[in-house]
């Protein structure tokens, strides 16, 4: 059983999805989905343990040797990502039953869970597989279910947002497909390990440059790198709250995983950073993303929009860490992926609770929220403080490493700009805090009660994780360090 963990990780949610159709009662489906996601979480925990103990796990699907068969390879990087995805998914699901009662009509509840599981399976698949074409397939599984999930939002703008995401997402995925095709054309293999062995032989061909460029652009669309981020704010803002909490924590991370995997392990560092002026490009775009998105966040009146823009800014930080292309820089990116997942899932879930009580998350709804929903608002404050990067929260850890990486590299101006950018986070978080604690509730809202426990428990689980991993950093730093070292050391 233990040897099959890598494939079970993906297969369990994938097969569980259609089973949901058999269970008709909404509550039953919810419990079932929660169990499946919990299983995935346990599996990823075991995988991580195994990887940290014994090194990379190679699993051949159906016993076929690579490159004929498809191979799953789990190293520290994948294992970390799997843990993030399945963990966030499980905690977020705890609140799903309560949340979707208010946001999705009852006849679509089982559909919601099916799509959710498919999307989960897709993301886990992207991360687990070591086959380039398989990446594309899983990418489309997760994206197609994501489009449908977003369209389930109760506002009609959800449809429009979903449509725009579909167009952008498909273009991105097709670009990735072209990139993979060109790589295959040059090397005759789709296995990532084989690719990494054969690509250096054809390093100086124009085809490979083309392949690389298509791939990078496609991935950047998916990870919402400024200025390819336009699909993100509306998609996050109008999707059902649970979906937003899940995607905000995971979807962009998966794309960043692909970026890291292909640039570091497949194309190799020397090619990736010389073929294109990638370093310069990413630093500039990352910084621009931080500033433009954070500034837009300040002016949003829909709070889901606000935190969606903040997500784009945070992606900017991850990209800057990536472009430093040192062990510390990569560690900063990986840590921030982990930490940001914790922050944003907590924040968006708390917004889900506000949505549950108010039916919207306008800034007006936040007037007096500190008194109306003290625990939810306290969670938002802690999440926000973590986003700012105050010590003893996870945000501080990733910021510390990012600063270290930049200073080691000698990029002082970038370090200064990043700190100034993080001050913008103070502005948009504190705007919310002031409204919540200093303004009286808007007329008609005075009787709103605290969110139900089914919300508060997962929210505070995530908030505690924000603090716990800000204090006891052994797990996150060890894994990130091991992953960064292995990316710089040997190929996958």
């Amino acid at each position, binding site marked *: 059983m233990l040897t099959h963990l890598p494939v079970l990780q993906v297969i369990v949610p994938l097969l569980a999805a259609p089973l949901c159709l058999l269970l008709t009662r909404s509550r039953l489906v919810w419990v079932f989905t929660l169990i499946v996601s919990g299983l995935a979480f346990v599996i990823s925990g075991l995988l991580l343990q195994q990887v940290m103990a014994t090194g990379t796990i190679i699993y051949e699907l159906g016993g076929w040797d690579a490159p004929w068969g498809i191979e799953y390879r789990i190293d520290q990087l994948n294992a970390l990502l799997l843990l993030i995805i399945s963990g966030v998914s499980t905690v977020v699901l705890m609140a799903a039953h309560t949340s979707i009662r208010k946001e999705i009509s009852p006849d679509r509840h089982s559909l919601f869970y099916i799509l959710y599981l498919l999307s989960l399976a897709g993301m886990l698949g992207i991360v687990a597989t070591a086959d380039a*074409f398989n990446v*594309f*397939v899983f990418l*489309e599984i997760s994206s*197609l279910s994501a*489009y*449908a999930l977003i*369209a389930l939002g109760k506002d*009609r*703008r959800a*449809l*429009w947002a*979903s*449509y725009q995401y*579909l*167009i952008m997402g*498909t*273009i991105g995925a*097709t670009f990735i*497909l*072209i990139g993979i*095709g060109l790589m*295959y*054309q040059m090397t005759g293999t789709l296995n990532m390990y084989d690719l990494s062995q054969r690509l250096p032989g054809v390093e100086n061909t124009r085809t490979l440059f083309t392949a690389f460029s298509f791939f990078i652009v496609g991935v950047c669309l998916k990870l919402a790198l400024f200025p390819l981020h336009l699909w993100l704010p509306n998609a996050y803002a109008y999707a059902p709250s649970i979906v937003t909490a899940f995607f905000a924590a995971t979807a962009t991370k998966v794309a960043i995983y692909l970026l890291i995997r292909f640039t570091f392990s497949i194309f190799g560092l020397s090619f990736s950073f010389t073929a294109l002026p990638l370093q310069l490009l990413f630093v500039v775009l990352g910084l621009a993303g931080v500033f433009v998105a954070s500034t837009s966040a300040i002016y949003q009146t829909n709070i889901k929009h606000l935190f969606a823009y903040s997500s784009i800014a945070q992606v900017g930080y991850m990209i800057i860490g990536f472009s430093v292309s040192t062990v510390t820089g990569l560690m900063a990116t990986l840590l921030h992926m982990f930490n940001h997942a914790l922050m944003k899932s907590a924040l968006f879930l708390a917004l889900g609770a506000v949505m549950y009580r108010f039916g919207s998350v306008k800034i007006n709804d936040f007037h007096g929220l500190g008194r109306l929903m003290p625990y939810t608002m306290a969670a938002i404050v802690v999440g926000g403080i973590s986003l700012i990067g105050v010590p003893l929260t996870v945000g501080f850890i990733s910021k510390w490493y990012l600063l270290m990486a930049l200073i080691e590299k000698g990029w002082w101006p970038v370090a200064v700009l990043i700190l100034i950018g993080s001050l913008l986070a103070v502005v948009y978080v504190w705007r919310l805090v002031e409204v919540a604690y200093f303004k009286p509730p808007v007329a008609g809202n005075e009787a709103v009660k605290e969110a139900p426990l089914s919300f508060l428990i997962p929210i505070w689980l995530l908030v505690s994780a924000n603090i716990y991993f800000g204090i006891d950093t052994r797990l996150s730093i060890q894994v990130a360090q091991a992953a960064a070292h292995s990316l710089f050391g040997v190929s996958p």
Partner: protein
Amino acid sequence: MLIGLYNYWVVVVLMMIGFYIVIANGNLIKKIVGLSIFQTSVFIFYISMAKVDGGTAPILAEGIKQYSNPLPHVLILTAIVVGIATTAVGLALAVRIKEAYGSIEEEEIQAKDNLDC
């Protein structure tokens, strides 16, 4: 040289046509048509690169030494399924948008959204 690579020219032209429609057209259905053309061009690209000069279909037979590569065909079979799924979801969304907004023109939808804000 240029003519020898004519299959790529076809791919590029198709791709640009599709891409142009997606960007320039305001009609949601037409956008999806454009997206399909865009995807199809990539399918053709995969199929055409698998052709080996003088090779035949990969069926074991007497006296034939050279086969074309079958793998891209298989891959593209998957990609076609994905493409159809995407088109289906896109069209379904277009139907729902029509029901919700009463239009499938991008500009009109944007205008209605702006009114809501």
